[in-house]
């Protein structure tokens, strides 16, 4: 059997009395997109930075592309073969996009053609624009270009779409999918459920420094997603109160009312009750999602900015 691209065993990171990473173990196979999903402060970035070799661990073993990353010689060799997009990528403000990517290219004996890379990321028209004058989305793309400049086998993308508008997010997703199509191994950290679900072959859900579950998105939803739900859009307290008389598990998501359903009879009972109450309702059926999985495993939801609530 081929050696995995990344093998993490019992990884621990402590800061004084605080344990940021608490005995994490997982493997990432070559050619797959592996997502670490969790709220801010869960330990995703710390875990990934230890694997990248930029942060020491308290305990545990990490092998990356066959090298022990805690071995100095192995780590140096390894850095030629990995690419890293950190959270909030920043580089030299007064250098242009092209100059900055060339700066990173200068770190490697062999590197990709910089112009070609800018074309691949559709930022060739910004080549002469200074980094400090770019929007957040374009800065992230420069970060991706810097991460790919050495044609790495393994790419770390830490929150690659945080703060980007939907259009740029989708464009970034396409870049990530294209990289996978080229056989690259990608470790993605994100707090966006849809991003993890859409991109990842496997997802590790990380909560308070521990991996709560790890599997393919489909398997996670099957195991923890809780089946299907009836959603009453903008049902509010009236719909909630009506359904609560018949069902114990009804809940509110904002103004929406969500009712997990076991069979069609549940739907019939719910709709009859709501109509008899005289409520004007808009309904939809929702299958279980990674969001449901996360809620079930962690006991809380995540806000758009990645905070637990």
């Amino acid at each position, binding site marked *: 059997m081929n050696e995995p691209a990344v093998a993490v065993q019992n990884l621990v990171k402590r800061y004084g009395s605080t344990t940021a990473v608490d005995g994490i173990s997982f493997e990432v196979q070559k050619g797959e997109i592996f997502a670490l999903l969790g709220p801010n402060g869960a330990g995703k970035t710390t875990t990934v930075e230890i694997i990248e*070799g930029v942060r020491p661990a308290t305990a545990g073993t990490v092998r990356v592309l066959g090298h022990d990353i805690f071995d100095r010689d192995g780590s140096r060799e390894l850095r030629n073969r990995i690419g890293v997009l950190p959270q909030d990528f920043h580089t*030299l403000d007064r250098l242009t996009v092209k100059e900055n990517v060339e700066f990173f290219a*200068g*770190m490697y004996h062999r590197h990709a053609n910089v112009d070609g890379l800018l074309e691949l990321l559709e930022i060739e028209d910004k080549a002469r624009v200074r980094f400090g004058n770019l929007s957040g989305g374009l800065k992230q793309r420069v970060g991706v270009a810097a991460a790919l400049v050495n044609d790495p086998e393994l790419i770390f993308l830490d929150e690659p779409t945080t703060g980007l508008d939907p259009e740029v997010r989708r464009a970034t997703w396409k870049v990530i999918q294209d990289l996978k199509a080229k056989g690259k191994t990608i470790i993605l950290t994100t707090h966006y459920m849809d991003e993890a679900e859409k991109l990842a072959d496997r997802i590790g859900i990380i909560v308070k420094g521990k991996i709560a579950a790890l599997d393919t998105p489909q398997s996670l939803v099957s195991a923890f997603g809780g089946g299907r739900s009836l959603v009453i859009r903008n049902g509010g307290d009236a719909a909630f109160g009506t359904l609560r008389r018949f069902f114990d598990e009804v809940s509110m998501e904002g103004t929406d009312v969500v009712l997990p359903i076991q069979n069609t009879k549940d739907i019939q009972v719910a709709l009859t009750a709501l109509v008899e109450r005289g409520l004007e309702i808009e309904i939809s059926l929702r299958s279980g999602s990674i969001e449901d999985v996360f809620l079930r495993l962690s006991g809380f939801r995540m806000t758009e900015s990645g905070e637990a609530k």
Partner: protein
Amino acid sequence: MRITAVFKAVTRNWLRSRSGLFFSFLFPVIFLLLFGSIFSTAPGAISLSVQNNDLSGGVATPISQGLIAAINSTKVVVVVSPILGPSDNATTFIQQQAGSFGGNPRLLIIPQGFATNITKGQPSRLTYISSPADSLGAQVGGVIGSVSDAFSLQVAGAHKVIEVSQVSSSVRPLNFIDYYMPGLIAAFMMTNGVIGLTNVASEFKRSRLIKRLSATPLTKLEWVLGNVLSQALLAVLLAATMIILGIVIYHTTVIINVYTVATLIVGAVLFSGIGMTLAGLVSDPEAASGLGNAIAFPMMFLSGTFWQIEIMPSYLQAAARVLPLTYFADGLRASMILNNAGAALTDMAICAAFAVVFVSIGAWATRWKEA
């Protein structure tokens, strides 16, 4: 290759910073123009009284007369007649001078046995007295210090009495701006390294660029060396600009030789090393920047860049002797003004030792990995 990449990138980034350019390049140039305008006026009007106690058979020794002639030959300071002798009371003379309208007495006392000590290669102390209220007192002290350095080098180096005329002719006529030029260059190269590089390195740390680079094959030492070399180039460019402006506008007669260039390069590396050390040792970028300022400004005034350290109290002189800027400024003065290769080499060697220490500490202290 990686050092070159760092060097090119940080140099470009710096050259495109308006505020960086102003404080690191234009500000020193403005300072030079200001100093030049004030102190480049024709010398000759600044008077100095001399009491010559070094008599032989009732007549001033040739060496003591040679020193007086050497001071006169600078055309910056003019020794007034009559020359006082051992029978004159220096204290009374100073009191009389100070009592006159606008009087600022400046008196140089040549001790008895001056010639004998000099010819034997033994130290002989000149005493220079000026009023603290005398705005030109320190500058005249600087002229006396530089002339006596060159004079004693010429005489002591020969191991025999040198003709007075030869001693006098070896001293070039100098303007005040000539004396200030090495000090100004030294001071601003120091601030660029200690303040400028501390700010730049702290900014890289704050923006997490260093952490990103640590995930590449770049080593910490390569990063430090790339930054130090960049700062060294900028410092040499600054020095060249100031020297050219001094020559073109104020007709300075500073000497540019291999010792001058080597001292400039060593100094640039030294102060860049201090900058990297501060940025590395202090984790908070704002604190590192503040510490750079707190170190640079006292060092600038204590190290004899604007006046001779001999005019300071003894405890401040002792402090000045452990500051690297003292040796850098002295080395530049020795090569650019006095044409004293021996002194320049000694100061350069001390600066080089400081440079090795600080670049090494800078490389060690730069945090390449997160905690």
